């Protein structure tokens, strides 16, 4: 039962929805600045680390034989994964008509766009000569050379740029009617002009709604296979390589489930403070969290099952390199990271089987952060441990995270939160039109 329909003391009406959402766009409060300024400082930290790395060379990034894909690629996979649940909530749950998505989908979609923006930086940061990143993109050039379309890295470029484009367009289209609502409410001239441009002249006539709802449906139908393809393609960056621990066919579903798992946790981490700061308890309800928690349980089980499958397959393959890799993961130099991952991703989410936990905001906040930590380590384990322990014992080695990598990773989180903080103050972060769609329609004759 959706609590939006239960008559509370102060019932949600069409007018109240508009007012409540537009109130979020008021002048930033001291609390907002208190979050925004430190965020900018950490972005600065990341940027300085990057400048140091570019001027000094990739050696400061902790790359040493045999590990040349480290924290940056971990961050890339992590942030692409975070992006996924936004599309899950906005597109897949839209196709399934899941009502609990309504009030959180805009925030989740924004998260998708900002997470892909963050992810897209890492392959470039990871380059020794980042100014040559455009060589990844096929374009006519004087050498008449084209990219190698048989390489998973080129697939990645296509998948991630398509994902960024489609999710940004989806995000902006979904916002058109709401921006029109803001346009019609704000009085100050500069803001009015900006919202008028962004609203594309939306008037809310039945023709516009007809085309809009159709287009939205097609977008959802296109975004659904896209989101499944993106993390599959990212997983092929590894699975196509002949490295023990990477070369396996379970990677695509395993990565997609993990992506949705971590992304849902990030939605919870982000919405809990927003709900509190803007008093959105009537919109983002415990039912929303309950629904998301159930999806977390599902994806946690899939991820846990994949961890088990990896072990079984390594043993059953009869390959000493494959089996050696997995024994090394659980008992070797990085065992602490491995078990952190297992505890955060498989053991902690068991708490969500209990309804009391699913409806307890504090517990959810802690669990969601632990899941994010666990999922970051999952990517780290897959990438770094596999490379540390390949075929030849003489070529084994241990990787240490450098302060430059740590700084850029912290900076990437700040970069993501910076966009998010700007977003909640400039654009309607709850869908006005979709919330209105779930409300009882105002009728004179009763309903």
């Amino acid at each position, binding site marked *: 039962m959706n609590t939006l329909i239960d008559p509370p003391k102060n019932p949600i*009406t*069409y*007018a109240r929805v*508009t007012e409540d959402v537009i109130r979020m766009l008021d002048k930033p409060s001291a609390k907002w600045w208190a979050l925004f300024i430190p965020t900018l400082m950490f972005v600065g930290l990341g940027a300085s680390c990057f400048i140091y790395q570019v001027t000094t060379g990739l050696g400061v990034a902790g790359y040493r034989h045999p590990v040349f894909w480290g924290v940056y690629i971990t961050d890339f996979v992590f942030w692409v994964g975070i992006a996924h649940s936004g599309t899950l909530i906005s597109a897949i749950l839209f196709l399934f008509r899941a009502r609990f998505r309504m009030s959180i989908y805009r925030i989740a979609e924004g998260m998708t766009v900002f997470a892909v923006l963050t992810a897209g930086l890492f392959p470039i940061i990871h380059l020794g000569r980042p100014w040559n990143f455009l060589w990844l993109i*096929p374009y006519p050039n004087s050498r*008449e*050379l*084209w990219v*190698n*379309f*048989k*390489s998973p890295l*080129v*697939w990645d470029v*296509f*998948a991630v740029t*398509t994902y960024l*484009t*489609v999710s940004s*367009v*989806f995000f902006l*289209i979904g916002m058109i*009617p709401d921006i*029109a*609502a803001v*346009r*019609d*409410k704000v009085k100050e001239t500069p803001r009015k002009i900006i919202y008028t441009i962004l609203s*594309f*002249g*939306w*008037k*809310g*006539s*039945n*023709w*516009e*709604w*007809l*085309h*809009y*709802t*159709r*287009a939205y449906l*097609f977008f959802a139908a*296109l*975004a659904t*296979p*896209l989101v499944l*393809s993106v993390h599959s*393609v990212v997983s092929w960056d590894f699975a196509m390589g002949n490295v023990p621990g990477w070369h396996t066919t379970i990677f695509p579903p395993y990565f997609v489930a993990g992506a949705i798992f971590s992304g849902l946790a990030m939605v919870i981490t982000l919405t809990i403070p927003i709900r509190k700061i803007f008093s959105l308890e009537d919109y983002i309800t415990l039912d929303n969290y309950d629904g998301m928690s159930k999806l977390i349980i599902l994806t946690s089980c899939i991820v846990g099952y994949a961890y088990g499958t990896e072990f079984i397959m390594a043993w059953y393959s009869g390959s000493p390199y494959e089996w050696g890799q997995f024994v090394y993961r659980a008992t070797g130099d990085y065992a602490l990271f491995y078990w952190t991952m297992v505890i955060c991703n498989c053991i902690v989410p068991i708490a969500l089987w209990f309804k009391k936990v699913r409806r307890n905001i504090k517990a959810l906040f802690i669990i969601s952060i632990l899941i994010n930590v666990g999922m970051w380590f999952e990517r780290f384990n897959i990438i770094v441990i596999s490379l540390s322990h390949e075929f030849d014992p003489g070529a084994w080695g241990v990787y240490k995270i450098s302060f430059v990598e740590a700084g850029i990773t912290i900076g990437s989180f700040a970069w993501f939160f910076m966009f998010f903080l700007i977003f909640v103050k400039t654009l309607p972060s709850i869908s006005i*039109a*979709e919330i*209105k*769609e779930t409300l009882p*329609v*105002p*009728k*004179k*004759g009763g309903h």
Partner: protein
Amino acid sequence: MNQGVLGIYSYVDLVIDAVHKLKRAGYGDLKVFSPAPNHEIEEAIDLPESPIRFFTLFGGLFGATCGFAFTILTSLAYPIAVSAKPIVSIPPYIVIVFELTILFGALFTFMGLIINSLLRNRAPVTLYDERFTDDKFGIMVVCPRDNIDKVEEILNSTGAEEIKFDKA
């Protein structure tokens, strides 16, 4: 000479009633404004299917064609054998084809939306009320100037709270 009349309502059932009455009286050229999509209004007006689906289909097919053409032609333009695979190897190209199908499908859908709903079928600015994105509904009727009184009467009798006229 035609002129527009706009009636503003607070309740959907009154709007639907008015739409039916206007249609029966022969005023089929109308637009209904609402803060959220509403199936009852859609049924009452009985619009044809949106042509956006053709944009999506065309975009998808165009993207797929581009994907095949791009990968195959560039491979042939500078033939170089990579890891003993054929110069044109379709399976890896399918990934590019898939991504471009989605990309162009989505971009053409966006274009279809802009063309159909934001460029065509736009309501005149004079007959728009800022409350339509908040909590009010509206019906805009375009009728011969001589029939304005009759339209106004129908709008009034169905409970319009305010009536505006096109200045043109």
